[in-house]
């Protein structure tokens, strides 16, 4: 073991293969360009049938996170976070048909991402996990600008779930946060690239807006944020530690406001239109901003892991809260 930020050969081959597959799914069908989202069911099926969703089991969770990031860069959408990262890391031996929706049963009446297209659901119920097959009859799709298919249960009292995984809720929340952070890292990366390209082409006062230092500085800040999201996510996937998952989600979710404001600002009114594509990434970020309690909840969990008993946590003056020796 030694600090090395390069992908392993297996990870390189894997992501190369992923990118090859995704290259055929970069474009939106013309009749979907005006919609809030486009769910690419064909790509979803290809990812499943060609085994990509099991990459975390075969190659490790870093591969799963890389897959989530890569697919989140697309303007079409697929469900990968739950299927390729949460499921393999939480219930690796239990088959569960994708797309998978993640549901917190503390809030059964709220709307959930991917529910209208989901085949199955993983539910957090107290300290436990339950699984269920999603019956489309139970689901009502709702309109949202949040760039995902959103839906709610027609009658939440009649949700019937089974196959209890006792005591697995904390592990599910951990990997849910890693999946969120991975998806945000991919979406942020694509949104920054998209906006930088737009800033190079769009002229104002006779020059590209990207030539103004005021614009450049804020885009540079956005690039820094997207990169920070990426590395915290990959570290969380690599380590499998709850603290790292909380740090990754906390960082990503707290940065959304700045990212979305700046990126939309530089796309101007064009960014308000569905046709302009930016919203596919920025309103994914908005959607993910509040999951698993959002940045505030993740930050409290970070604090609990670092200062659950401050008096005991104070070590010698030469020690550090993130003890790099361990």
């Amino acid at each position, binding site marked *: *073991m*030694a*600090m*090395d*930020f*390069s*992908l*392993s050969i297996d*990870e390189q081959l894997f992501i190369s293969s992923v990118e090859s597959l995704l290259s055929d799914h970069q474009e939106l069908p013309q009749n979907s360009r005006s919609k809030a989202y486009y769910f690419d069911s064909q790509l979803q099926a290809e990812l499943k049938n060609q085994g990509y969703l099991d990459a975390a089991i075969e190659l490790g969770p*870093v591969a799963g996170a890389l897959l989530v990031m890569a697919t989140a860069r697309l303007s079409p959408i697929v469900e990968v976070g739950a299927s390729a990262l949460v499921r393999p890391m939480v219930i690796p031996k239990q088959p569960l048909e994708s797309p998978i929706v993640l549901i917190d049963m503390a809030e059964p009446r709220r709307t959930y991402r991917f529910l209208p297209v989901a085949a199955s659901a993983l539910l957090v119920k107290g300290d436990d996990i339950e699984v269920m097959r999603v019956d489309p009859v139970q689901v009502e799709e709702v309109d949202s600008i949040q760039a995902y298919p959103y839906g709610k249960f027609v009658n939440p009292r009649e949700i019937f779930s089974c196959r209890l995984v006792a005591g697995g809720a904390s592990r599910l929340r951990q990997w849910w946060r890693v999946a969120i952070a991975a998806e945000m890292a991919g979406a942020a990366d694509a949104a920054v690239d998209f906006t*930088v390209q737009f*800033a*190079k082409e769009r002229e104002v006062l006779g*020059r*590209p807006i*990207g*030539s103004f*230092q005021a614009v*450049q*500085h804020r*885009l*540079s*800040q956005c*690039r*820094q944020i997207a*990169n*920070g*999201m990426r*590395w*915290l996510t*990959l*570290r969380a996937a*690599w*380590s499998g530690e709850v603290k790292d998952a*909380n*740090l990754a989600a*906390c*960082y990503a979710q*707290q940065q959304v406001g700045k990212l979305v404001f700046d990126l939309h600002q530089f796309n101007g009114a064009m960014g308000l239109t569905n046709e302009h594509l930016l919203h596919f990434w920025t309103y994914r970020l908005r959607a993910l901003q509040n999951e698993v309690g959002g*940045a*505030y909840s*993740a*930050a*409290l969990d*970070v*604090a*609990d892991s*670092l*200062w659950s008993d*401050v*008096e005991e*946590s*104070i070590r010698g*003056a*030469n020690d*550090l*809260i*993130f003890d*790099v*020796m361990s």
Partner: protein
Amino acid sequence: MDFGWSEKQLAFRHRARSAIRELLPADWYDVAVPKSYAHDDNVEFSRVFCSRLAELGLLVHHWPVEHGGAAGTDWEQFILAEEMKAVGEPRAGQYMNVNWIGPTLMKFGTAAQKDAYLSGIAAGSSVWCQGFSEPGAGTDLASLLTSAKEAEGGSYLINGSKIWTSYARKADFCFLAVRTGSSRKEISIFLVPMSLPGITVRGIPGLVKDGHLNEVFFTNVHVDGAALLGELHRGWDVIQYALQLERVGVPRYHVGLKILDSVMADLKAIGRADDKNIRARAGMIASKLEAARLLTYLVVDQRVKREPPSADANIARVSTVEAVIDLLDFILEFVPDALTGERPELEEYIRMSIPSGITAGTYELQLDLIASGALGLERK
């Protein structure tokens, strides 16, 4: 991909920590740290500390064997930097010696210059200061005005002034950038003994601790031609080389996490550590400091692999500055006595963090470099 330390790296960190514990005096944290590492007393102490560090094989561990090192790795150099920063940098200005002044001398120095200076640096006995910035030349270094003009017998006559020159009052030598020609880039580097007649140093009181801000005046200072480092008028090459050795920067996130831990302990003592708003703020700052850590480690990893310098170094610096500024806000909002003498160690951290967006390339310069290097944006 691997975010863990090797056994060898862990052993090296343990070795560095053990050495620090052994070498620092008992009152280090109470007396020395609050004064800050550029204070005259601490600069003098660095001669003792670094000499002992050298005896333990840790001062220039990463240098080549022929210059007194052990050919240690870049990661080991960085681990040492983290550990030193975490305890208040007892090497004082000698961290510059080992990180970039020595290696730059190895690259550009004559045999005589290497003989004259490298052994002193490797022994931990010499203190250097960096004579780059001037009242009218900071970020735009090429506009510096201090000049060196050829004089009789191949010597040079230096006139002008430098500013913000940390450690200058106690320094033995100055790594001095001067104008030797009329065009912007006609700059040269001289290795100047600070004991020469015509050099005076004046401390500048300020928000940062004493010793960090000095002004150095050069009035008809005669230096031997042998003091020229590299070719005449080609000092820019030397500076660029030196700066890329420092591309990783000071690991401010590392000490920031330690400070955050200490502040939370203070808040616990006054019954505020359970306040959810405070805990959430602290958790968010911790996540930013960790992002800064990973972005910095990425740059070290690139250096290990001998990849060319990239905008990732600028991204790491921006990330660190933003995290540190959040931490300063947090401290000053929730620790009321932080700047009134009640918490000297914390005050030192705050005061030394105030210029975090200015030193070693301003925050705005870093953003410029990200825009051009990472985003491909050009200014018109």
